[in-house]
């Protein structure tokens, strides 16, 4: 179903609503649906930098399921290290 078809369906109930407003509702609906169902799975790749520990996460990531380092699955640390840094 294209965005146009979805907007037309919404307009059957709300003929006075504008396209931009309906698009905003649809975007909220899609985000809520994907967050609640955890239906969209994906893989992101990036290279590490020597001596850099911290890397920002893409804003579209809701939850990290697992991580591979150089092709091998690595473990998640329970909690945080006692000695903290921003390195």
């Amino acid at each position, binding site marked *: *179903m*294209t965005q*146009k078809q*979805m*907007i037309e*369906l*919404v307009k059957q*109930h*709300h003929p006075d*609503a504008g396209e931009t407003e*309906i698009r905003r509702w*649809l*975007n*909220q*609906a*899609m*985000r*809520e*649906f*994907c967050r*609640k*169902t*955890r*239906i*969209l*799975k*994906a*893989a*992101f*790749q*990036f*290279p*590490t930098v*020597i*001596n*850099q*520990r*911290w*890397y*920002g*996460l893409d804003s*579209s*990531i*809701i*939850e990290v*399921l*697992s*991580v*591979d*380092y*150089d*092709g*091998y699955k*690595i*473990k998640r*640390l329970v909690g*945080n*290290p006692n*000695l903290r840094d921003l*390195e």
Partner: protein
Amino acid sequence: MALTDQQSYVYWLERDGIAIAKYDKDASIDNRFTSPAAAKTITLFVVKSPTALTTDLTYNPTSEAGLPEEFCEAFVEKAVQKGYEVRMGTEENAAASAQYWGAKFNSSVKEGKKFATRRRGAVTGSIKGYDY
């Protein structure tokens, strides 16, 4: 990288970021976690949010892998609910309609959860209740 070496790496999440470090449990507290000493590839397996709709009316959200066509109806249900919520106070039956469409959306969310959990594999079994 050898498997034994890989097993000493760990990750943790904090402040919208991910930390990767080599963990040596026998080292002193100051040197227990060291940053990667070489440039390697990190692969994150994640749950993500969908690509937002733009002014491209021909875009189909289900073109994104993992989002089946039948769930487009759920997005419409929620949008219709939001429309009725806006009209609450000015229209007599808007609250009831919003509630109806909200319930339909919640039912679709349940179906979506089932689909996401099954991960396109066969249903493995079910738990049956018994009276003793």
